[in-house]
């Protein structure tokens, strides 16, 4: 067992509410809300964590208390009327069944939301200062409106209590209305709500006092706040400590949930939700400082991805509860596994930010490596055993093949996994070669550990052949041979190198490089960083409107920061139309996507990123011999039923991942899980 595990597994009692251990998940918006209510999908997602041993799970990040803070953006929860109470009741019963506690976050988002949705009310704030992130200019709140919103908070907390929730926190972090009053970067009022810190703290105080009156002294009400806004005109660390100490001393809050930074613009957003480029627990010093000044428990979340760090944070007294929100998205059973001595089975969050990046483009939270998260109604976190033991051959040990082997082996099948390379991991091994993307290697590391533990016959350095596969007399063959880089369709494309050539070290470039990208993903941005770090002069050309257009909002700013620092030149809105030699150099012909104007570059190398094309030679050889001609029954996949093929007549042949069509890690893993769970 890890050091200090006992500190993590100790209960915490707040006002008579006992939380069974020190591990929690903070309120966030997974995008699962429906009609402003936490319905089945939302509840099952949290129930899985409760089953998995979590002490406290908080849901409803930014649940709104008022009509002028709409719930529609990010599919959030509205606590603005009583219709939500029955949902809270079924939700809390569901979580309490497993011994866990359930709380919600209540907030008014102020200017940090949209006006062009739901009821089309203007956004509001302490002062009419535009927020870059939400792109809204808010209306300045009048005293009557302040009183209304204070009342809305009080009504909302009553609904939480009636709904059986164990408590709630108000959000005064990430630039919501309460911290829009606190922060001098927003609040320029001259009335009793502006000016001195005491005045700026007044709105929050009124909210908490009203909530306390509505919910009673025994109901747990906490606050989420920043420990340092880390901007010149924002709240300093000292001011944050003072706010926390004052609210705690005056009995307004029962716990303080501390984070670092704020989220008013792209870079601040990426810092406040640190990805894999950050060290683990980068802002632990902030709750630690606040804990020294307050008597109430202190919570903290921010890239605590492993239990050893979590245990240290609690054991050393920096925090009372440690939030492992993304860690639970990767593995909702992590506390159970810890307490059962199965730490090696924990699927650790790699910090890819796939979950949160999807939310900020209006999607639902999904885990890059755990396809069951958020799909609890259809996908199992614990794979049940199959009734009939089959022989399964999987070709290719990338994420799709590894997941297929893992799930089949967990079903009790006999599994042979061929991998022609010496190491498993597939294209993740290439992606992980790029600078701060190294942590991606955690995905295959866990999968390999599991397949070995489950007894899969993993044949590394062994290329599968038709004879070798048929020699195993398989019932099922799964082709997960992945994709190979495409060099695109420009004239003279054969003169280009692929990003994979650069990352794998197949070529080592120097001089000037034109990097052309039509995918907008991490691949080209990572490659640009690698090339520039090695001294190349890099021009990053893309047909998109801006580089790395498809990279999410917690990752893209990190790419930009690094590429700007390295002097990489960005040239968006250009197509690559031809590459031809001139002397020992290359000329790249480019065409503007809006004007069709053409221009040329003379460079030493052209590197291109066009995604991958399936490696399907083996599939085509086996296809005719299989009982299903290599086809997957889509109706059965969607219905969650076994593929309707008669294995008595021969073997079934399936493809998963990029061997089917070039997509991403999650797609490959989901392909494998949903197919194999019913084999």
């Amino acid at each position, binding site marked *: 067992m890890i050091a200090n595990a006992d500190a993590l597994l100790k209960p915490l009692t707040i006002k008579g509410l006992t939380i069974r*251990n020190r591990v929690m998940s903070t309120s966030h918006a997974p995008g699962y809300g429906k009609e402003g209510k936490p319905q089945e999908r939302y509840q099952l997602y949290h129930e899985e964590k409760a089953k998995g041993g979590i*002490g406290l799970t908080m849901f409803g990040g930014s649940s709104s208390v008022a009509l002028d803070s709409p719930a529609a953006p990010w599919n959030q929860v509205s606590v603005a009327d009583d219709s939500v109470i029955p*949902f809270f009741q079924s939700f809390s019963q569901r979580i309490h069944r497993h*011994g866990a506690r359930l709380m919600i976050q209540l907030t008014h988002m102020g200017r940090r939301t949209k006006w062009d949705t739901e009821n089309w009310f203007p956004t509001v704030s302490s002062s009419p200062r535009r927020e870059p992130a939400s792109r809204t200019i808010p209306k300045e709140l009048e005293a009557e409106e302040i009183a209304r919103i204070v009342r809305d908070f009080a009504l909302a907390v009553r609904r939480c209590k009636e709904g059986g929730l164990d408590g709630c926190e108000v959000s005064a972090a990430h630039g919501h209305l309460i911290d829009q009053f606190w922060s001098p970067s927003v609040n320029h009022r001259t009335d009793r709500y502006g000016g001195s810190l005491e005045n700026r703290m007044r709105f929050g105080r009124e909210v908490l006092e009203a909530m306390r009156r509505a919910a009673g002294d025994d109901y747990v009400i906490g606050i989420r706040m920043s420990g340092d806004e880390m901007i010149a005109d924002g709240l300093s660390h000292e001011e944050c400590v003072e706010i926390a100490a004052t609210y705690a001393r005056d009995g307004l809050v029962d716990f303080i949930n501390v984070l670092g930074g704020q989220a008013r613009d792209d870079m601040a957003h990426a810092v406040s939700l640190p990805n894999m480029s950050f060290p683990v627990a980068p802002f632990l010093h902030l709750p630690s400082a606040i804990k020294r000044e307050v008597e109430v428990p202190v919570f903290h979340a921010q890239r605590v991805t492993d239990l050893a760090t979590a245990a240290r944070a609690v054991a050393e007294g920096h925090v009372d509860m440690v939030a492992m929100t993304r860690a639970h998205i990767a593995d909702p059973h992590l506390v159970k596994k810890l307490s*059962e001595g199965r730490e090696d089975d924990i699927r650790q969050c790699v910090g890819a930010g796939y979950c949160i990046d999807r939310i900020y483009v209006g999607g639902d939270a999904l885990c890059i490596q755990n396809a069951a998260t958020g799909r609890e109604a259809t996908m199992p976190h614990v794979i049940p055993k199959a009734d009939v033991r089959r022989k399964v051959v999987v070709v290719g040990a990338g994420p799709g093949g590894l997941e297929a082997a893992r799930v089949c082996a967990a079903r009790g099948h006999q599994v042979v996994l061929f991998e022609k390379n010496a190491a498993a991991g597939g294209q993740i091994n290439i992606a992980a070669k790029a600078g701060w993307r190294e942590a991606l290697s955690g995905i295959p590391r866990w999968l390999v550990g599991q397949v070995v533990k489950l007894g899969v016959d993993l044949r590394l350095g062994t290329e599968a052949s038709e004879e070798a596969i048929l020699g195993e007399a398989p019932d099922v063959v799964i082709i997960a041979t992945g994709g190979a880089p495409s060099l695109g369709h420009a004239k003279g494309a054969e003169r280009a190198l692929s990003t994979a050539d650069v990352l794998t070290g197949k070529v080592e470039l120097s001089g000037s490089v034109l990097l052309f990208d039509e995918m907008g993903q991490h691949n080209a941005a990572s490659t640009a960083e690698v090339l520039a770090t090695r001294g190349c002069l890099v021009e990053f050309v893309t047909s998109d409107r801006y580089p790395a257009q498809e990279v999410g909002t917690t990752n893209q700013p990190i790419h930009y920061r690094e590429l700007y620092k390295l002097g990489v030149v960005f040239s968006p809105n250009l197509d690559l139309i031809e590459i031809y030699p001139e002397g020992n150099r290359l000329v790249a012909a480019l065409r503007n996507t809006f004007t069709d104007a053409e221009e040329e570059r003379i460079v030493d190398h052209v590197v291109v990123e066009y995604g991958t094309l399936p490696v399907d030679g083996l599939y085509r050889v086996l296809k005719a011999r299989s009982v299903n001609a290599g086809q997957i029954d889509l109706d059965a996949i969607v219905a969650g039923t076994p593929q309707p093929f008669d294995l008595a007549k021969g073997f079934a042949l399936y493809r998963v991942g990029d061997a089917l069509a070039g997509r991403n890690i999650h797609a490959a893993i989901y392909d494998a899980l949903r197919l194999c769970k019913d084999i």
Partner: protein
Amino acid sequence: MSAAFSATFGLSLLVWLMAAVALAGIAARVALWRKGRAAHVDWAAGLMAMPKRYLVDVHHIVQRDACAARMHMLVAGGLLAGSGLAALGIVPALGGSRVYWALTALAFAIMLTGACVVGLRRYPKRPHRLSGGRFQILPWLLMGYATGALLVAALAALGARGGLVALAFTAAAGLALSSQTARGPMRHALAGALHLAAHPRPARFSGTRDVALAPVDLEAERLGVETPADFAWNRLLGFDACVQCGRCEAACPAFAAGQPLNPKRLIQDLVGAMDGGTNDYAGSPYPHARPVAGTGGVDAPLVGVAAMIHPDTLWSCTTCRACVEECPMMIEHVDAIIDLRRHQTLMLGAVPEKAAAALDDLRDTDEAGGRALSARADFAAGLDLPVLHPGMAVDVLLWLGEGAYDLRHGRTLRALVRLLREAKVDFAILGAAERDCGDLARRLGDEATFARLARENVATLSALRFARILTADPHALNALRNDYPAFGGHYEVWHHTAFLDALVAQGRLPLGTLAGLAVTYHDPCYLGRYNGEVAAPRRLLDALGLARSEMARHGTRSLCCGGGGGAPLSDIEGERRIPDLRMDQARDTGAAVVAVACPTCTAMLEGVSGTRPEVRDVAELVLAAFEAGQGAPAPRRRALELQP
């Protein structure tokens, strides 16, 4: 003819003379024993019971080594019968009968056969556990005496001549043999017989295991045992009964692990101390023996570098009672060790460092780790275990024990709680009112702390209404069941394996099967050897459909995990760790799982590194079988969805 008759007469006289020599030898020992403290002995009952104790109880132990049992039956039976007949030959009516001497010759022939087996056992190569020295010449003396006496009797029976030469031969061997009674192999015969009659734990002969330690009068001037004279006289007698067969040595886990303890040597050091420190011990030494002066006396200290026994020897003991279980002379080694520890701890404060810290915590906080009593139930946070308060009544009081603080054992307890709930058992815990049971303090010799904890726990329990106590900790079970009655606490105490076994038998826990899982069960010493509960856990495991196999040592003869008696705290260095030895035995069975039933065993065995079977508590296995029997999970409760 007359020569033959005089030879038989001589033989008769010889036997009487040998008896006199033996009695004179033992008389000197009696004088030494009388220097011990007084002890209540029911002589009449003891002497009456002696034949049964010898022929049944002792025989049960001796016959575990069938060859040794046959050997002893022949040689001792022959010796007693032949010598008895020869002695009575002094009566003319008998001495004149050739048939009588034929019978006598037969008896000595039987003895000679036995004596030859004794010889074959020790020559050409003496087994490791047997002592040499005087014991190595024993077969020659037995053979000499038996051969000579056989010849004398046989010649007389045949009416032949030449008896006097044989008489001279047997006289020399016989007198040498009987002189081995004062200090030598033959002492065991007389001391052993007396020990059976005056045994300090007579209940051991009436079917109970009688393992409760005697409380100490804490007001006495001297606590525990410092010198041989501090032992009760019948304990000293018991030490003299030792025949140095080495069965204790072969069973001792500390000896096997190369720690400086050998129960046989320890008993001989106690005997040697009575003799003034002389010691002609010729058996295996203490492994990696720590040097001591080797001086002693009836009134001289026993333990210390300047005495007979090094403290490391004393603190190596796990109190597993394997030596006691194996001893054919029914010697109580562990009682002696506890008595010696009591003096070290209570009078001298000479406790190993980590053990001293634990005792300090027990004194200050009622808990060996200094942890809050309210934190004992932390493992069950979220399970809402009911706490028993005065005014409530409950069927089962769940005693959590020291192990509840341990994360690993918390898993076991959670499994047990789940099973209790599934079986609808009406149970509660003591919560913060549960103090340490005191087992650790008692085994480390801190009788004062144990007595206080026992009294306070008894007071707590007296105020509560419950029908029985259930615990997953055999140490707590033993303390509550066997040690607390002396402090006024009389409880029906169940170990969880027995309790779950009963629930399964009553059909209250429907089980699926863990078919095919290869498992071997490790008996906790405090459950098996101390309390004789070896059947219930096995019956329970068999109900799970497991493929169960036994380790080389199991049941009441099991090998300790190394965790008892505060040994993990004393932490005396050896060559290997005891749990490694035990795990080797588990590995040899090929089992995938070692089933355990004690938090200490769990911790010790899980501490074994390298590839090894998984360690799982019986409760965890029962829960797995229960869940396997539950089939498909119940249909999911749908969340409330908005109506379209």
